[in-house]
């Protein structure tokens, strides 16, 4: 993407749009961008489409409180104009919270993501946290295309605390290298802390923020 013309936007998603797979969400953004009439940068080739990068894909059924994506523009646009035009035409449930011109150089948005925070809500979800073993592996079956494999949730879990009986807050490893899916965390509570399966399957799942690691090792919120 052309330096100085990439709009880095923070966005939230709830409601109907939370049920979209990542590729479908990208298509929704593409069409929204086209509707705004903003000067967009397009890909070359057979079917040109707007250029965008998401920091971390959102799984189906996961709400986002403050996720980040970069959108490539073809001319200088003020962030307020971008935010205004997008919010005027995004479908219900998707919203741009803020935007700024992305800094030049540096690593890609995707490579920058190291951790993510989640709030998981449902009957007994918070109370189950205290019942989770304080140490040791937390194996969970992860179903994939070729069958299921066992994943140890423990090393991917950075921080975990109950907010109240029916909600927890978690900080987990996230990104292209290591990533904990929130449904696996819920499954760990089912398998190792007695949370009923229904409560896990029905839990509200909200990703509240994404984090990168600064040069001094400090955790920095991605924005």
């Amino acid at each position, binding site marked *: 993407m052309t330096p100085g013309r990439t709009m880095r936007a923070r966005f939230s998603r709830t*409601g*109907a749009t939370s049920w979209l797979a990542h590729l*479908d969400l990208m298509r929704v953004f593409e069409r929204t961008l*086209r509707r705004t*009439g903003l000067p967009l940068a397009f890909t070359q080739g057979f*079917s040109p489409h707007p250029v965008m990068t998401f920091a971390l894909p959102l799984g189906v*059924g996961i709400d986002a409180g403050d996720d980040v994506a970069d959108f490539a523009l073809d001319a200088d646009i003020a962030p307020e104009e971008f935010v205004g035009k997008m919010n005027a035409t995004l479908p219900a449930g998707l919203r741009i919270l803020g935007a700024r011109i992305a800094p030049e150089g540096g690593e890609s948005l995707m490579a920058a993501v190291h951790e993510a925070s989640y709030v998981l809500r449902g009957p007994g979800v918070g109370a189950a946290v205290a019942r989770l073993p304080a140490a040791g592996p937390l194996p969970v079956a992860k179903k994939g295309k070729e069958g299921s494999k066992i994943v140890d949730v423990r090393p991917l879990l950075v921080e975990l605390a109950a907010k109240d009986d029916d909600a927890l807050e978690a900080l987990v490893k996230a990104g292209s290298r290591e990533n904990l899916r929130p449904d696996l965390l819920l499954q760990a509570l089912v398998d190792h802390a007695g949370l009923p399966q229904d409560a896990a399957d029905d839990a*509200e799942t909200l990703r509240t923020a994404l984090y990168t690691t600064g040069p001094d090792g400090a955790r920095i919120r991605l924005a």
Partner: protein
Amino acid sequence: MTTIEIPRRILRKVEKPARYVGGERNAVTKSVPPPGTPEAQAFQRFAFCFPDIYEIGMSHPGLRILYHVLNQRADTWCERVFAPWTDMEDAMRREGIPLFSLESKTPLREFDFVGFTLQYELSFPNVLNMIDLGGIPVRTADRADDDPFVIAGGPCAYNVEPMADFFDLVVMGEGEEVLGELLDLHGAWKKAGKGPRTEFLARAARIPGIYVPSFYEVSYNEDGTVASVAPNRPEASARVLKRIVLDLDAAGYPEDDLVPNLETVHDRVFLELFRGCIRGCRFCQAGYIYRPVRERSPESLRKQALAATAATGYEEVGLLSLSTSDYTGLAELTAHLVDDLDGQRVNLSLPSLRVDSVSLELMEKASKVRKSGLTFAPEAGTQRLRDVVNKGVEEGDLMRSMKLAFEGGWNGAKLYFMLGLPTETMEDVEGIAALAHQIEALWRTIPRELRLRPLDLNISTSMFVPKPFTAFQWEPQESMDGMRAKQQHLRNLLRSKAIRYQWHDTHQSFFEAVLARGDRRLGAVLEEGVKRGRRFDSWDDHFRLDAWLGIMAEQGLDPAFYANRKRPYDETTPWDHIDVGVERDFLVRESRAAEAGETTTNCREGCAGCGATVFGGGVCFE
């Protein structure tokens, strides 16, 4: 008023949960007046139901047009309902969740009208299943005064008889105007305090184009053929004439078209160039039932394209019609459109065009780097059989077109044929292979430098299904065994690296043929099939012919009676009381001409007197 919320744990377990949540850009939400107020009395809820999954239903232009037209009314809210996939249906039935609309999540039961579009016969079981999932009695006779009116329209509505026991009323023809009249009538009836169902239906029956099946009695002869279909009430006319929109430029068009959140089959802006077809190919029901041809002006279409791309953000615009090469404004339209759209990085998707130098140039211009595939539909392998079906493609035309295409950089094409056409012999089947081999030979004469990739020729054959309101409505469908023998023979003849041969399953075509010319006795078969779990019959991995044959046998009905019988011209058909404009006498003349291998001119070459002039407009008066 209830709203249905599907629990997260169910949405997380089904395929593509976004099918069931709505929330799309340009979806219409209206505020329903509080119950008891005068506004509430006049407000009407219409559920537009497409009997297949979201991705298929959302591709249907008719839904997109009528959704827009109905929602223009201040007193009406039209919402969408699609068939839940089997995984969601199982969950819904298990947990007692009724079928609901996407916009407001209102259960089907709470609507004033539940309207189905009947696009293909194999969707009939899904229709019944959706009515049942909606908590509405499947049979008209069982509905109470507070049940919605379950109605239907679309091409299969012209012979709706297999489904006659399940619809309160059926709309014949194009819905834009007649649905408005129906809603005006219903609004007034509602304001006046409603009343018994039959009272409303009696008034509706007086609206031209509306057919109330329960107002007709069907009697049968000893041999099972129909003796008569006669009105049993004064409000019902002896014949129901379809309705059409004469001025398409004035007709509604969804500039603010729905933008699906999921990828659909026809994921683009559609431009409906014209309705009907001038060609009169004898097997083609669409060509007859949508007569007379009525075009939209290039100016209207250009305006629609620009407005719709701006309001939707779609990246592609597609041209829609039965025979786009016959659109008189094609050159004018595409001259502007390609440039307009190119500036916005919007692709113009062209359907199969007659391949001549003009259209090849157009295709080059429109598709830039990638060449979209070429398709031809010769339908039959020999000139003799092409003349029988009145498909005016000459072998010389086809070869000239292929040569132009090859010289222009295309390396292949897809050719569509039908097997089982009337008078067909093995020689005609072999003619398909002969054409393919001729194209292969032609390819080898093209200079090497123009042959950058290997030849890729696709031959596709489907099974001829005789349809009502065509010249072939008296013909038998070929037996499934006969079909398979022909497919196998053709397969053996087409063994070449450059040729891919695709053929369609005979089972579905056979059942389609049974339903297409079926009568009311099939209603019980359909109902029983649905009770036993039949759904998504148009999906070949769900269709079970043995199950349907078993039910027909139980009911004492013979599928061959419907599909494989040669019918005499003077037999009363189950659809005689429906009038599409094209007259039976014309169809008989065409049938005889077919037998003699004689062709008929197209509407612009010379009027053949089909009867469509009765509508007083369109190409007949150009």
